[in-house]
C-alpha cells in the first residue's frame, strides 16, 4: 500500500528560506540545501521549494538554489513559484526539480498545464491551487499570492486541471495558511473525492495532530513549513505519531 507522505516546504527568496504569514511578513529561516539534507535525514518523503522571489534576478537565484539542493537530495523535489511556461518548467527540471507546480499562470492560461504534461509527462505537472472559502459555501480560487480572488470555483478548477494533465494537486487553504489553526478539512475532503490524482494538503498545519486530521480527511500527503523549520518537532517524530494512529508511513 502506498504510504502517506510528509512533505516539508521551503519558501525561498533570494537563496534563503523564509516563512511568512498569509504569504507576507517574511522571516529568515536558513539555508535551503542544509535544511533539505536535514529533512531527508529526518525521514521526509519529498521536499517542496516555493520560490517567493518577486524579480527576474530572484528567479535566476531560484534555479541555482534548486541545483544546490539537488546535489544533496535523494528524495523527490517539487518546485513552484513564478512558473509561467514550458521554458520556465524546463529550466527548473534541468536544475534538478522532479516536478514543477503551476499556480497563477495556469488560472490565466490553463493550456500551460497541458503543455508541461505533454512535454515532460503528467508526473511533472503539478497544480498549486490556493483556495479561499466563499460566503454561502464552497471555495474560490485565489491567485497572485492571495491578492486576487478569481470567482472560479476551486473544485471545478481542480477537475479541469486534472483533465488538462495535472498529475497532483498541492491544495492550499488561503484562509488557514500561516495561521496554525490546522488544514481546511472540508476543502481537502471535497477535492479528494472530486479528482483521481493525489491531493497534498497545505496551509495551516501546526502539529502532528493537524497532519493526522488532513490525512484522515482524504489527503494523500501533507505539506508543512513552520512546524519543522523552528525545530518544534521533527519529521521522524511526526511519523511515529501518525504510525501510532494507524497511518502507514515510510520509516
Amino acid at each position, binding site marked *: 500500500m502506498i504510504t502517506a507522505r510528509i512533505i516539508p516546504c521551503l519558501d525561498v527568496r533570494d537563496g534563503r528560506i523564509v516563512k511568512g504569514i498569509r504569504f507576507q511578513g517574511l522571516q529568515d529561516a536558513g539555508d535551503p540545501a542544509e535544511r533539505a539534507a536535514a529533512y531527508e535525514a529526518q525521514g521526509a518523503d519529498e521536499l517542496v521549494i516555493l520560490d517567493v522571489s518577486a524579480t527576474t534576478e530572484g528567479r535566476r537565484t531560484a534555479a541555482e538554489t534548486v541545483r544546490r539542493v*539537488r546535489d544533496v537530495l*535523494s528524495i523527490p523535489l517539487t518546485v513552484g513559484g513564478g512558473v509561467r511556461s514550458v521554458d520556465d518548467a524546463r529550466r527548473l527540471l534541468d536544475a534538478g526539480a522532479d516536478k514543477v507546480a503551476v499556480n497563477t499562470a495556469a488560472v490565466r492560461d490553463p493550456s500551460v498545464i497541458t503543455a508541461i504534461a505533454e512535454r515532460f509527462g503528467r508526473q511533472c505537472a503539478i497544480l498549486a491551487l490556493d483556495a479561499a472559502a466563499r460566503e454561502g459555501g464552497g471555495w474560490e480560487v485565489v491567485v497572485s499570492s492571495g491578492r486576487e480572488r478569481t470567482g472560479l470555483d476551486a473544485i471545478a478548477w481542480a477537475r479541469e486541471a486534472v483533465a488538462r494533465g495535472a498529475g497532483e494537486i498541492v491544495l492550499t487553504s488561503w484562509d488557514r495558511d500561516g495561521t496554525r489553526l490546522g488544514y481546511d478539512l472540508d476543502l481537502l475532503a471535497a477535492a479528494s473525492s472530486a479528482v483521481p490524482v493525489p491531493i497534498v494538503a497545505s496551509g495551516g498545519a501546526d502539529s502532528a495532530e493537524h497532519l493526522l486530521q488532513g490525512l484522515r480527511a482524504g489527503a494523500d500527503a501533507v505539506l508543512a513549513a513552520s512546524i519543522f523549520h523552528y525545530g518544534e518537532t521533527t519529521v521522524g517524530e511526526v511519523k511515529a505519531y501518525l504510525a501510532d494512529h494507524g497511518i502507514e508511513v515510510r520509516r
Partner: protein
Amino acid sequence: MNARLPDITVVVTGVANLASVLAAWRRLGVTPHVTEDPDEVRRADRVELPGVGSFGAAMERLRETGLDAALSERVDAGRPTLAICVGLQVLCDASEESPGVTGLGRVPGTVARFPDRVRVPQFGWNRVEAPAGGPLESGYAYFANSYRLPVAPAGWTAAITDHGGPFASALWRGDVLACQFHPELSGAWGLGMLSCWIRGEVAPGGDR
C-alpha cells in the same frame, strides 16, 4: 583510498529529466556519461535507460536513434543494463498507454493502467518485497507511474509491490535490472540499490 567505481553510461532519449539521475550517481562517486549513440551503448560496460515520458514517445525515440537494437542486444546478453520506470515498460511487449506501439519485447507481457479504485498516478513511497539473492533488498521505494506490469513475467525474477493489486516493481536477470520505481529518488535505500548494482553485488538481504 577506494578503488574507482566503473563509470555509467546514461542513455538520453530527448525528453527525460536527467538531473536527479546524474546527481545520484555523483553522490555515489560514479561519473555518469551521457549518450544517444547506439554504438556507445553497445560498447559501454554499464548502461542506464532512465524513465522517459510516455511509452509511445520513448519507443519512437529509441527506434529513430537505433537505440532499440543496441538495448535489446544488451538485455539478451545479460550485460549490465539498468532500466528505470518507462525504461522497464519499453522492455515489455506493449502498453495500454500507447495502443498499437510495439515495445522491445524482451520481457513478456503487456503494461496496463492501474485500476480506477486507487489513486492514479501512483505518487509516493510504496513497499517493495524482493526475494533474496538479487540486487535489491525489500524496502520502501518512490514511484511516479500510472501504468505497470501486473504480472511477474516468465524468465525473470521479480520484486512485487501492491497498488490496487500486485505488480512487478522490479525485474532482474543476469546483470539486467529493471525498476518501476525511481532509485535516484528513493533515499538511502535507492542509493543502496544503485551502489549494489553498479558493483555487480548481491544485496545484503533481510528487510530494512
